[in-house]
């Protein structure tokens, strides 16, 4: 991924509600998963409490600052095994 961009991914029910699975955004200083959620009009001012955030394949807090080239994902409730 080019420097200066963010890759945003959605899964399962979130993907189907939004109608897309992946988007690219221009990274700006101070952006967090919370601001990405709002910018992409994913619903309300913040994700529901049941939605978890991952940054570069690791769980992260909603307000963790994002860096150039990061991949941020919004994960609906997990149900494996």
């Amino acid at each position: 991924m080019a420097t200066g961009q963010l890759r945003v991914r959605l899964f399962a029910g979130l993907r189907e509600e939004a109608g897309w699975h992946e988007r690219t955004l221009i990274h700006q200083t101070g952006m967090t998963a919370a601001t990405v959620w709002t910018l992409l009009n994913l619903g309300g001012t913040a994700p529901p409490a049941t939605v978890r955030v991952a940054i570069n394949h690791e769980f992260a807090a909603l307000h963790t600052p994002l860096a150039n080239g990061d991949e941020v994902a919004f994960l609906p409730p997990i149900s494996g095994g």
Partner: protein
Amino acid sequence: MSSTPLAIPVDVELLATPFDPLQSLAAWQTRLRIESPCIAAAEAHFIGRVRPVTSDGAPLEALELEHYPGMTERRIAAISQALALQHGVAAVFVGHRVGRLKPGEPIVVVAVAADRRGPALRCCQEVLETLKHEAPFWKREWVNGCGHWVAANTPL
């Protein structure tokens, strides 16, 4: 001076097509024998299969299992490694299906090798319970051509 704990052998397999958990276990045991001359005295195994009914009790047509490629494997490996160290076991194996499964098909196999049955059994159960909540998988139940995402795990 701090010391880094030695890595414990952890095998993770995500499988996109039906698999035989007994064959997976046999292959893992063979790998263990090759990698380590000391055979662990205890092994705990768990095999999970798709239920024939949905969480609401309707007859299930199929179960779809979505995952996050890259993160799912990484999370299972990290969970297994941490719990292996915590319980002091010798090796962990996790095989997990993804894609579309029919009722009765194997969905997960967890195996733990250890010196004693206690750590083997406890670690096996904890790996399974933790991956159910901490490894990104999403289940969708299909009934009469309609899919419904499952929002919670089944009771223990």
